[in-house]
């Protein structure tokens, strides 16, 4: 409900004043629905694998319900006007991710229970539940600390620096897992600082671009019909971008590079509304990809695998993981094998980058389309909040975060389904691993904060006998 319609309602019929509603009850209802779906899916895994209800149905189920219900209570207190759809959608994805990780843990390597899939243990699900709790805690903390989006604007450069440091840490003291050096081991836990760097840099880009957007879009020379900004305005942004790219190339994580680059281009486009930026971005990206594919063997290999994954044209079988994922999805077909009835464990590291193929195999095309639509809905709600909010910083932040979520889903899902060359990044909310989950929840919190700001009714003037105006603070 927009502010003008509130006034219209007040003016039109003073007796039936309808206050804007936060729709928290809708959120609770949807959340309940999400929990039920997840519980059914969880029960299905047990029935599919052993013909019995899984042992942890009550404990895992209750824990999950309590976690998301806690998130709901926090929203009631901290962001009562926020979009009611975002939290249930995120909770549903998180829950389905837990279910699939439990399913992969139970079936084990090559379908042998007791022999965990590589990089999984028999406690993986328990850890993932703990990480979910940590994610929701982060969600609540972000909502509690950042009561207004503009608070973040004060820390533009601090967060920019923090983002760069987070990106740089693994390159210096990190551990390399499966080719990408993006991990940081702390007391047995592996953390991907890059996941958080994404958020910090989004805030930095938003703050910086808001301050400079007039200069960026107006000043400068026109060359060949394209408005070029002045070098000094562009300098800091280019430095951050180049630094992040360099670090990521150094850490050999192409997926994250593409993600940061896309975030950067999208935000500068939102800020300046200039198509030239998209053009420049595209050219830079294509050039960068070409150079990378020539310079780094593994990038070129990824492109070869994308074009020729199958045995007939790929004698070295270098696209084994990709082919296994595709065969799994093909085997699932339209309706899927049903949870617990497929063999997703044939895909190496299925619980991480390739988890979407496990969903494709067991829930089928139908289930996978539904899950992509859930991601799409979250993105749509985020963009909606960005359009509705008035504060340009919040607008830019929400727009950038929504886009980066969409881009992340596009890169990883497109990669594993052979739409684009495969670059390993996590699937938000679904993949095994804490960093991605916590960062995703923090991202959701930021979107809901912006949404809350956008939907919060303006302070209403109260007419007091036509004489005095009292303004009630909202």
């Amino acid at each position: 409900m927009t502010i003008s319609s509130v006034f219209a309602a007040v003016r039109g019929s003073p007796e039936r004043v309808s206050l804007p509603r936060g729709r928290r009850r809708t959120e609770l209802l949807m959340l309940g629905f999400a929990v039920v779906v997840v519980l059914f899916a969880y029960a299905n895994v047990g029935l599919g694998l052993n013909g019995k209800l899984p042992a942890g149905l009550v404990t895992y189920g209750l824990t999950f319900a309590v976690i998301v219900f806690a998130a709901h209570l926090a929203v009631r207190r901290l962001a009562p006007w926020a979009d009611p759809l975002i939290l249930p959608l995120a909770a549903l994805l998180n829950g389905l991710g837990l279910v699939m990780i439990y399913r992969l843990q139970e079936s084990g390597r090559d379908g042998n229970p007791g022999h965990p899939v590589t990089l999984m243990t028999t406690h993986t699900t328990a850890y993932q539940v703990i990480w979910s709790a940590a994610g929701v805690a982060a969600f609540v903390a972000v909502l509690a600390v950042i009561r207004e989006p503009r608070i973040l604007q004060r820390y533009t450069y601090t967060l920019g620096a923090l983002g760069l440091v987070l990106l740089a840490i693994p390159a210096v003291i990190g551990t390399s897992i499966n080719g990408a050096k993006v991990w940081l081991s702390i007391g047995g836990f592996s953390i991907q600082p890059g996941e958080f760097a994404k958020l910090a840099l989004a805030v930095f880009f938003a703050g910086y671009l808001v301050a400079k957007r007039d200069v960026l879009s107006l000043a400068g020379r026109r060359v060949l019909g394209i408005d070029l900004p002045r070098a000094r305005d562009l300098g800091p942004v280019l430095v951050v971008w180049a630094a992040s790219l360099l670090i990521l190339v150094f850490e050999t994580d192409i997926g994250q590079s593409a993600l940061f680059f896309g975030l950067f281009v999208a935000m500068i486009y939102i800020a300046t509304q200039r198509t030239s930026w998209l053009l420049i971005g595209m050219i830079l990206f294509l050039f960068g990809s070409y150079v990378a594919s020539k310079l780094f063997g593994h990038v070129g290999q990824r492109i070869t695998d994308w074009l020729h994954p199958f045995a007939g044209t790929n004698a070295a079988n270098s696209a084994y993981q990709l082919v296994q994922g595709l065969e799994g999805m093909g085997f699932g077909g339209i309706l899927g094998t049903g949870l617990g009835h497929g063999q997703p464990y044939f895909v190496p590291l299925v619980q991480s980058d390739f988890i979407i193929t496990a969903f494709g195999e067991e829930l089928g095309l139908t289930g996978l389309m539904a899950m992509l639509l859930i991601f799409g809905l979250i993105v749509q709600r985020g963009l909606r909040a960005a359009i509705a909010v008035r504060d340009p910083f919040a607008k830019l932040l929400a727009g950038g975060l929504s886009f980066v979520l969409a881009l992340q889903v596009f890169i990883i899902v497109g990669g594993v389904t052979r739409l684009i060359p495969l670059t390993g990044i996590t699937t938000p909310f679904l993949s095994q691993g804490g960093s991605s989950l916590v960062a995703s929840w923090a991202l959701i919190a930021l979107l809901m904060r912006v949404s809350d700001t956008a939907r919060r009714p303006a302070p209403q003037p109260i007419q007091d006998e036509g004489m005095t105006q009292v303004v009630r603070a909202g």
Partner: protein
Amino acid sequence: MNRALLRLSLACLAMFALLLININYVQAFESTSLAAEPGNARIFNQQFQYQRGSIVASGDHTGGGVKIAESRLVKGTSTYRRYYPFAQVFAPVTGYDSIYGATGIEAAQNKDLAGTDQRLAVHNLVGLLTGKPKLGASVYLTISAKAQQAAYQALQAQSRQDNGLPAAAVAIDPSTGAILALASYPTFNPNAYTTFSGKKLVKIDNQYRHEKSQPLLNRAINATYPPGSSFKIVTSATWLSGNASRSPQSPVLAPPALKLPNGNLLHNDAGEVCGNGNPQLILAFYVSCNTAFGNLGIKVGAAALHHQADLFGLNNSNLTIPMPVSASRYPLEPDPSLRALSAIGQLDDQVTPMQEAMFAATIANGGTLMTPYLVQNVQAPDLRNIQSASPTALSRPVSPQVASEIGQMMFQVTHNPGGTAAATANPQVAGVDISGKTGTAENGVNNAGLNDAVFTCFAPSSNPKIAVGVIVQGGGFGADAAAPIAVKIIKAYLGLP
């Protein structure tokens, strides 16, 4: 900034649209070619993720019977493994089902057993929607467990006595063509083929393949031997059918040695005399004079004899039960001298043990040969019959009159004191009237090999319920090596002590 945000929203929409189109392509359109990818582990494993249908020997009581192949859940996994409770006994029937392929009924009825047959599609879809595990259909065979076990044990005992000579036996219900027993020895243990380890499987398979006794050869239907004197049934049938005035009592020329048109002499076995040299046909039949039937073979002509053999089922390479049965051979023989040899089951004559059973079955069924078959019915997991056998006539080799006459002659083989099988298949031994014909076929280059022992028979003589064909390779006299095996099968099937 809202205009840029709206455009960005469209970009997001486009990204999701591309993803959706792509997964539609992968999962709905590309799935077929993905399934055909070499080394697709899921397609490979699919066959072990559900319960394959059982194979049941239901010849002893229709609708019930003995499970001779079933899939059992491997403890602690969701994988099913094939199990053959009787190991070697039914191996020539069931064949095996392994990760690399199948043989026997396992191969011939694979679509039913695997549940992939079109007729099971609706049931599988309902099962998918109701979450029931996918099951294959059960295949009920005409095999009598009692007859099959008796056949296997008799062949095994005979083989042990003969230093491991191979042998095979087939029993048929003459009135329907239902195969009651199909045994071959030595044979393999199908349980050895159910391993999930490709390495082990290849090793076991190689071992079997290189064994000299050829355990993987299903001799009952895929090996041929000279029929010897049992072919005299065909020669008699040709001669008796040629003219209504001929009967078993008609005298035939049967000198101790028959001078063939090419000047060679055809002798009776061991130079025996045949009656007074001009005996009734029936005597020549039960004592099995070679000269009498060699002469008849010359007299009836090449075409008639060849045609009669065709009608009995020889020279037919299209017979399936549903496994393909190797063709038994009787080539057209225009040279009368050679035809004399072919008329007594020598020269180029080659028959399967199945063909031997078909000889007796034709006579037992009044001259009509029923098409042999193994599958009685196929039962879907919901107990619906999706296929039932309906017995059909394959051919009418002889008239009921001639069949009855040949029947009388076969009766004398076991009942007349001079009959070739009077000692081994008489009613006192068998406990039932058996009508049969022995064969002792010379073998090898210049007949240097051991004689093959052949016996074809049916019982009870007055009301035939079972026809049996037995061949013991290198077994010597048909009456000594083959007939006792047939007697044991008949006794087991008819429930005689």
